[in-house]
């Protein structure tokens, strides 16, 4: 899933000031699962903005709405009436959702209520961690299912650096050294010899370094 976090309230308050009729728009998939932008957080944030506006004396109505995914045009189009009636939309989706709104509602102010953080997993309720950097060229077959691109602070491909101490990364004792994990897991799998293969210099063009990415499936497109 894409993991998001809601922006600090002060930042939200500042960016929404002046837009009297404000629509707080939730996104019911990744944002909801991140507890950043589902209906529950929409209600909480909308209420918070109203309370803050009461203190500042700012007028206007704060509306609440949510759709299944803001990254799909069909869902977005379902709320065009609500959107047309407000001064700005505060989107609680990831960056992709915010931009889809901006695309579909050309004349409307669209504001991001969340920061898009990473592609990751739920370790437990309320704890998420990064697992994938979306580099466009998966090497997990060679690294025992543990990604050094996403999880090594230096994105090293041929073993740990000298900063690996007691299985932890030198940047923080709370960060596992992924190379230690790779070595441990390969040892368990009895496949340590796999590390004898040297990774060549990584081609970062599928990772977006070759410009914005786009994918077209001729068999599917209209």
């Amino acid at each position, binding site marked *: 899933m894409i993991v998001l976090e809601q922006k600090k309230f002060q930042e939200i308050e500042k960016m929404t000031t002046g837009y009297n009729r404000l629509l707080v728009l939730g996104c019911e998939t990744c944002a909801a699962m991140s507890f950043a932008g589902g209906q529950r957080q929409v209600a909480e944030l909308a209420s918070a903005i109203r*309370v803050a506006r009461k203190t500042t004396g700012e007028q206007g109505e704060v509306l609440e709405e949510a759709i299944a995914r803001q990254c799909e045009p069909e869902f977005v189009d379902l709320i065009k009436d609500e959107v047309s009636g407000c001064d700005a939309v505060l989107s609680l989706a990831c960056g992709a959702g915010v931009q889809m709104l901006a695309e579909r509602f050309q004349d409307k102010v669209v504001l991001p209520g969340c920061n898009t953080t990473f592609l990751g997993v739920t370790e437990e309720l309320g704890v998420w961690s990064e697992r994938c950097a979306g580099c466009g060229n998966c090497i997990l077959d060679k690294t025992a299912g543990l990604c050094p691109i996403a999880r090594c602070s230096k994105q090293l491909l041929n073993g740990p650096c000298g900063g690996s101490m007691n299985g932890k990364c030198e940047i923080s004792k709370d960060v596992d050294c992924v190379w230690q994990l790779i070595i441990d897991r390969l040892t368990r799998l009895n496949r340590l010899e796999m590390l004898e293969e040297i990774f060549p210099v990584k081609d970062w063009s599928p990772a977006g370094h070759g410009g914005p990415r786009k994918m077209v499936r001729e068999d599917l497109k209209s």
Partner: protein
Amino acid sequence: MTKDELSTEIKYPPCKLACPILTDVREYIQLIAERRFEEALASIRNLNPLPRVCGRICTHPCEAACKRGQVDEPIAIPALKRFAADGPWKGRYKAIMPDKSTGQKVAVVGSGPAGLAAAHDLALLGHHVTIFEALPVLGGMLRVGVPAYRLPKNVVDEEIQAILDLGVEVKTGVRIGEEIKLTDLSEQGYKAVFVAIGAHKDRKLGIAGEDGFEGVVSAVSFLKAVNQGENPKVGKKVAVIGGGNTAVDSARCLLRMGAETVHMVYRRSRDEMPAAKEEIEEAIHEGVQVSYLTSPVEIFGEDGNVSALRCIKNELGEPDVSGRRIPKSVPGSEFTIDVDMVIAAIGQAPDSSFLDNELTERDKRIYVEDPYALMTTHPGVFAGGDAVTGPATVVEAISAGKRAGISIDLYLRGEPLPTTEQMEAVETAKLSPALIEKTRKFARCSKISLPAEARLKGFDEVDAVLSEDLATKEALRCLHCFLGARIDKEKCISCLTCVRVCPLGIPTTTKMGEIAIDPFACQACGMCVLECPVRAIDISLDPHSKIAREIEWAISRSQQVEPVIVGFFDLHGNFRSSDVESLRQDYPNILPVMVFGLRRVDTSDILKAFEFGADGVLLAGCPSDTDPFPETADRVKRRMAHARTMLEALGIDGARLEVCDMPDEGLVEKELIDGLIQRIKGPGQAR
């Protein structure tokens, strides 16, 4: 539809499903838990005109079905019913009277529970009802059968009076079939008759000596004499033959009337004894001796009086049609007990001789075509209760009376009568051992009864009514069958939050993320309802929207005494309804919202309170020893910390949100409230 399908479809809790009149037990128990006692009584009374009677002598099949019974002990339902029905609010119940009379006259023959229930329901449907009672007193077996130590006469009288107050007429001392024939009633303008004459005739023992001596008495006539204050002659050593409630009632009365030894003689073992378990226990506690697996053989006499009872021991053979094992006498096991009185209590039949040639009978019982419609072979004449079924329970009689009420009303309006719905008893679904293990146990309230010596001095009621404290505590043991979480599958995004937060591990998922919550197993803690990020779960026990509405309602009724504080109070605390009242008086600025646990209050609710104009919010959770889900307390505390962070971000002093535990007794410590008020009034606000 079978009852099983019905139960899942309509989601009746097992207690309600087990009740012959489908009393909404769960509803009134919840109302007691919420300290809404008057409404609890109304919930019972709307369906049952004899709640104080049932609160004392109902055989409570609801209790046997109670889900809590699988965990520790079932909810003490009769005690709670009695609490609701007996409280000082009992006179305030007002039946909803019909707009106008139908002008139709209905005769009810017999004033026992069946007749009373029918009269009550028919009167509320606008019919003009007259009860004909052969005895000089009303109430049938409630008045002349059940002894006062179980059911005080004033209780019966008061409940009957409330029924008569609906405009029901009474003719006592009139035996239909003698002075007036059934057929005469139609000439007198009665368009329908309900025959509910009960079963007042004891079966004969059928043994030698039964008719030869003074001192062989039928249980019904004995109880009738006792209950009418006739002070019948009682022996010193008495044998009571039989194992039903009539036998136990006779035995316990005998002890109260001076019998030195009372010996019950029952042909099967204790397990098969038809009397209520508690009654047998009380009788033994009071000193009644019971000879199980024993049958009487012959009664001996001297000088015309009973002198001894010869008995034989039995052993149990194969089960009969009723499923009870047939007793077989053991040859050579005869023995004799010295007695000077023998009471026969081996079952009763209706005394329907006077109805000869008027109604068809089977085994002395009045025959009805359909046990739901209750019409006899005689059009317009209906029958029900013990007269049709043989001796049964008070709630079954009330059920018959209510069915008769429906049928007679349809009959009078010329509409087709209802037919029997196939309603077979359904066993309560079994809880998994893991769930039983995880469910917090709470001891059942113990009965408060007179000590045995004090009881035997007279006919004072043995059991006392529960106190408010005990009743609310007991009601809070309810596990809220079918009131718990329901998933809206259209909204669910399979995020697994419910699976992760449920303290009992009830939500399950498939590989494709389809979440299911067993509505019977769920105990309605409400945790998943709030944590669900897409609000796909709601709950019937205080839905989340209700809490939001209550906040708004509370604030709208605020008397503008500042600072306005919304107080969320956990119903599981040890407080009385008077504590809430005194809080309202002492602190009119605190607007109480009662909740089933602070789990049910979300950050957005706290923000809502401020949005609607509150100056502060107080959350008082129950002491941990009364919390049914203590494992959720930490999560709730962290949620409140998050709320406080939100408030601070909004520029509101986080100290305006007070989260505390209730004291061991009472609602909340005054110092705490004063402290909160002080903080709100004083400096420290960022804006």
